[in-house]
C-alpha cells in the first residue's frame, strides 16, 4: 500500500473551512473522483471543518490518497482538542444539534462517505476518519 504525503489545513477561522474544501477537492480530483463524488467529498469536509470551527478552539483536517491493490480513495481525518462528545449515538441522530443547526452534519457525513469512524473523549477532543472509495 502506498500513501501520498498527507496534507492538512488548520481550522481556526471560518474561511479555513473554504481552504479545507479546496484542498480536499484537489486531492479528490487527483485520486480520480467524478463531479458528484467531488461534491460529496467537499460537502463532507465542509461539515467536519465547520464543526471544528463551531464547537472547538481549533483543530485540523488532513487528507490523503489511499492507493492499494484493490481500490483507490481519499481519507479525510478531522482532529480537534475540543470538549469532546459525550454521547456519540446521540450526535449521530438526524436532527440533534446543540447550536440550533439542522443537526444533519455528522449523520450526513456518514451517508456521504463509505467508511466513517468517530472517536471522542470528554475534555480531550474528537477524531473522525472518513473514507470514500473511487467507483
Amino acid at each position, binding site marked *: 500500500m502506498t500513501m501520498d504525503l498527507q496534507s492538512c489545513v488548520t481550522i481556526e477561522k471560518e474561511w479555513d473551512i473554504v481552504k479545507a474544501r479546496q484542498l480536499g477537492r484537489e486531492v479528490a480530483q487527483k485520486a480520480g473522483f467524478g463531479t458528484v463524488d467531488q461534491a460529496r467529498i467537499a460537502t463532507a469536509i465542509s*461539515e467536519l471543518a465547520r464543526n471544528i470551527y463551531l464547537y472547538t478552539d481549533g483543530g485540523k483536517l488532513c487528507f490523503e490518497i489511499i492507493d492499494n491493490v484493490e481500490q483507490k480513495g481519499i481519507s479525510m481525518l478531522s482532529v480537534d482538542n475540543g470538549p469532546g462528545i459525550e454521547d456519540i449515538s446521540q450526535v449521530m441522530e438526524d436532527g440533534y444539534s446543540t447550536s440550533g443547526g*439542522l443537526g444533519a452534519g455528522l449523520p*450526513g457525513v456518514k451517508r456521504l462517505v463509505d467508511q466513517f469512524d468517530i472517536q471522542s473523549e470528554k475534555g480531550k477532543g474528537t477524531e473522525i476518519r472518513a473514507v470514500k472509495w473511487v467507483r
Partner: protein
Amino acid sequence: MDNKFKEIVLENSDTIVQKWLDEIDAAKNGNYSVSISDELFESTNREFVNIIFSSIKDQGETKNLKEFAEKLINLGWQVSYITDGLQVFRRVTIDFILSQSDQIDTKYISELLQSVDGWVEPVIRQFVNEYSGNWENIVSLQRVALQELSAPLIPVIDNITVMPLIGTIDTERAKLIMEELLEGVIKHNSEVVLIDITGVPVVDTMVAHHIIQAAEAVRLIGATCILVGIRPEIAQTIVNLGIDLGKFPTKSSLRKGFIKALEITGRRIVDSGKKDDAMEELIDSLGGE
C-alpha cells in the same frame, strides 16, 4: 568603522552604482516581466539606487521611498524586484569595499557585513511595509466590492424577483442574504422570489439551513420562495445529507422556476404562433428594452 565604510561607498558611489546596474540588467532577462521597456527599467533602476544611497547618507531616512513603492505597485512589479535589487547591492558593495581594503581579518569582515546589513535593513523594512499596506488596502476594497455583489436582487417583472447567488456563502453573507431578501421583497412588492444557487459551489447543512430560514421568512411576509439552479451533484448531496426541502418549491433551472413564478402570479406564457420557443422569446423581450 561604520563611518569609514560609509565614506568609501559614498565617495565611490558612481562605480558601485554602475556595477549594480550591470548586474541588475543581467538579471532582468531571466526574471522580470518581458513587457518592461528598457527605458522604464533603466530609469526605475536609477531611482531605486538613488533611494538606497540617500538612505545610507541620511541614516535610514527614506524620503522618496513611499512614492517609489507606490509607482512599482501600480506598475505591478513584484516585491522580488526590491529584494533581489537589495541583495545585489549588498553583494556589490561588500565586494567593492573588500577590494579597497588592505588589511582584512575576520573582525573586519564581520564589521563590514554588519554595516552593510544595517544600511539595507531599513530600506527593506519600509518597502515591505509599503507593499503589505497596499495589499491590505486592496483586500479590504475587494471585500467591500464583494459585499455589494453578495446578495443582488433583481426585480425581473412585476411581482417576480430573482436573487442569483454566486460564490461561497459564509455566515456573514448568509445574514446579508436574508436581510436583502426580506427588504427587497417588501420594496419591490414581490409575490415570488427565485433564489438561484447555480453559482454556489457547496451547499452544506449551514447553507441549506439559511436558505430554509430565508424561505420561511419570505413565506411569513406573504410571498413565495422558489429555489432554482440546483445542479445534479448538489441535489444528490442534499439528499445524502438528509435535508428536507419539501416545504418549498424547487426547480432545476431558473427558466423552469420562472415559468412556475408566472403561474403563481396568475400569468402564463402565450405562444404567439411562431415556431420559436415562447420562453426564449420572453427572455429576449425582457432584454430588449
